[in-house]
């Protein structure tokens, strides 16, 4: 009796899903093993994580606060993928959106409702502007967006750090701007109305992509630009539009963070949401609706990390755990194309 491995031309959704579940379980097992080796009790810690996140109303609110920006940056990256662009710059666009929202909130006097609308528009616009140069460079000169969007992240982060500790700094804290007056109203503890808006954006975009002529053209352009050109689709125009949209969504996430959660601009406000968003998008396998779920999952992982830190684990251990999950998921993804058969003798 001999067992053999066979590669299939495509994987079924069920197997792909199962592969991802197995990957996550394996990652958790390995993490548990490491915890045991370092002298922790994994069951105790797991119980602690669950009881103070999923089974606790404050915990759930913490989760939601992390979920909103993560899902939006994931959406930003996933939208870019639809047209075949890797937006590694969601981090920078997030900063840019937060920067613009703060500027509007601090320096343009207006009633709160108007100020919030202006901040929202400013967040969208700033994110789009931050990705404008990489977009045009890709559309007209075929410059890789991987590098250009990534490099602008550092510019944005340092710019925000500079204004938050320099020209705009608050006399009391010295490391952040004064409080922005306009706040997005909250409807459940720390959860504000940005939450349903973020989910709505994902659903609307998913519907637009699958149910409009424009969406069809975008998906075709992303899958094979020369076939799209052959079908008479203005590929370059769509590329520019979609990349700007990708940047705008990340910028909006930055605006929500300022107006809904932090209420001021500070260095490091992005919390790496832009980078983790790449993971959210990869886990969702190009599905915009999937981003809602993978965003929630990554939020849970991040939140668990924070809880574990209060239990004496280091940030690096938590980072290693997230890395492990992505790594194993990638392997599971590839393995879902294979099946094991048994030879009849």
């Amino acid at each position: 009796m001999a067992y053999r491995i066979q590669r299939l031309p495509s994987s079924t959704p069920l197997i792909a899903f199962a592969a991802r579940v197995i990957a996550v379980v394996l990652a958790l097992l390995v993490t548990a093993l490491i915890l045991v080796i370092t002298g922790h009790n994994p069951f105790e810690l797991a119980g602690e994580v669950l009881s103070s996140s999923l089974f606790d109303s404050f915990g759930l609110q913490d989760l939601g606060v992390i979920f909103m920006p993560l899902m939006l940056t994931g959406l930003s990256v996933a939208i870019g993928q639809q047209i075949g662009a890797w937006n590694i710059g969601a981090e920078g666009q997030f900063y840019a959106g937060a920067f613009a929202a703060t500027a509007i909130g601090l320096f343009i006097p207006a009633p709160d409702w108007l100020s919030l609308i202006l901040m929202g528009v400013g967040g969208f616009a700033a994110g789009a502007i931050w990705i404008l140069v990489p977009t045009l460079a890709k559309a007209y000169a075929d410059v890789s967006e991987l590098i250009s969007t990534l490099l602008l992240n550092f510019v944005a982060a340092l710019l925000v750090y500079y204004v938050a500790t320099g020209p705009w700094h608050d006399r009391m804290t010295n490391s952040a701007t004064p409080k922005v007056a306009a706040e997005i109203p909250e409807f459940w503890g720390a959860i504000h109305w940005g939450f349903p808006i973020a989910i709505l954006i994902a659903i609307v975009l998913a519907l637009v992509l699958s149910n409009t002529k424009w969406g069809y053209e975008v998906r075709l352009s992303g899958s094979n630009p020369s076939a799209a050109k052959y079908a008479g689709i203005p590929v370059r125009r769509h590329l520019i539009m979609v990349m700007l949209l990708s940047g705008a969504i990340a910028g909006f996430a930055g605006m929500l963070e300022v107006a809904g959660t932090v209420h001021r601009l500070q260095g490091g406000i992005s919390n790496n949401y832009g980078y983790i968003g790449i993971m959210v998008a990869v886990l969702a396998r190009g599905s915009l609706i999937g981003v809602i779920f993978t965003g929630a999952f990554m939020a849970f992982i991040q939140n668990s990390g924070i809880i574990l830190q209060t239990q004496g684990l280091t940030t690096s251990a938590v980072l290693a755990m997230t890395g492990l999950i992505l790594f194993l998921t990638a392997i599971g993804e590839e393995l879902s194309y294979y099946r094991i058969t048994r030879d009849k003798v």
Partner: protein
Amino acid sequence: MRRAARPFLVVSANSNDSLIGSSRMQDEIPAAASSPGTPPRVYLKGIAKYFPGVIANENVDIEVLPGEIHALLGENGAGKSTLMNILTGIYQPDAGEIIIDGYARQFASPVQAIAAGIGMVHQHFKLVQAFTVAENIHLGWDQTPKRTSAAVLEARTAELARAFNLQVKPGARVSDLSTGEQQRVEILRVLSRNAKILILDEPTAVLTPAEARELFRALRDFVSRGNSVIFISHKLDEVLEISDRISILRQGRKIATEKAADCDPRMLAKLMVGRDIVLDDMRGRAANAKPLSAEPVLKVAGLSALGDNGLPALHDINFSLRAGEILGIAGVAGNGQRELSQVLTGVRPALSGEIIIAGKTMAGLKAGEFAAAGIGHIPEDRLHSGLAPAMSITTNAVMREYGRPPVAKGGFFSRDAAGKLAREIASAADVAIPDFAMPIRNLSGGNQQRLVARREMRIADRILVAAYPSRGLDVGAINTMLRYIVELRDAGAGVILISEELEELLNLSDRIAVLYEGRIMGILDNDNLDIDEIGLMMGGRAHGYAGEAA
């Protein structure tokens, strides 16, 4: 006799009868019935292989005798490659036996098959481009000396080349060799591992006629020493020329094994596709065909365009096409055919000149507007520019009509209507599709091309530009393709047929234009045409061409 004079006849270690068998072989065309007691070199017995939803092989019995060139003939997807992958240990059969020189064998891996004397030369060579010939020959070979130098390897290679009578340049880099030379290196590498059974997959597809002749000489030399060759092909003439016997596969099953001497092309084609092939004059119109239009549906005047490299690829092209007419474009590939088909369909901008469709100038318009004006386009590289391979069959099928009702309503895209249209196109193309959500790259090349053709025919109200529509297809699929084109012509569309198969052009075209270095060397009526003259024009000799009145 040259063959008999050779001192070494291969005596297989596993067989005490093969010497006798081999001597018989020198004077006769080998046939199973004529040599009782001689175990075949390869006996595939009742081989079956199943993939999910597909019968790749079932109940296949094939005997390959010592000293024989045995051709394996079949359409794309008939199961030839799977069968050879089983013989070379890449796949394991689900049923059946592999019997080599009378002994049943199981190959768990290609290494074991090679050790048993089975070597395969794939269609896409597996050589390291940056290595020299000698290095490639010695790569991954247990006979390679442990401590060695380039000079030693080259000397050993030269020795092998002499022994097997294959000319190679031991010190040359593979990337500097022609495809014919690379193929010789591949063959030498296989033979140097003491292969007694050489499998060649479509070996002439990459060769010039002269190189193919040289290959055939080498193969005859190889089998004259009592070895065997399995020759996979779908070119009928070549199979008849080189092989002793021919086995025909169809839909995974063996249909027949015939002596080549008893076969003719028509009969083989029929066995291959299971029906009569009409590969002859298709210029006759159906009774209800629309007549040729008085006014041209397409006029091209003074057209020029740049190639991908930014250099002029088309110069001063002039012709006109009437509705209901097929204009063939002959020429060696790479003389502007690709650019011409792209400019005529709006994919590539014209540098100067005019394209007038049904009286309307198309200056400055793009592919979308050309399609809307009733031009269909079967591109030469369907996977790169005619399809999005990773996307679903439905997505690909509606590529031309997604923007008009019923698929598009307002700005919306109706998935139901798209699915319905896709099923309609698939049924017109006679392609059975289990799952329309599956990526189109999972379909065979022939089925992809049928879907593309049907999709384009639906929008080709006025003109169809078909670039190499039969390239890479087998006889059955080619025949279907050509039928489609005739059908469209009879429905009253003008057809531009770009092809490198002269026979195809002669069978279909009303007129034939010859392209050479981006210029039309002449347009001839396809009526008692002198083929030599077309040949001369393809080689760059203009003939009586003053261009047509634009």
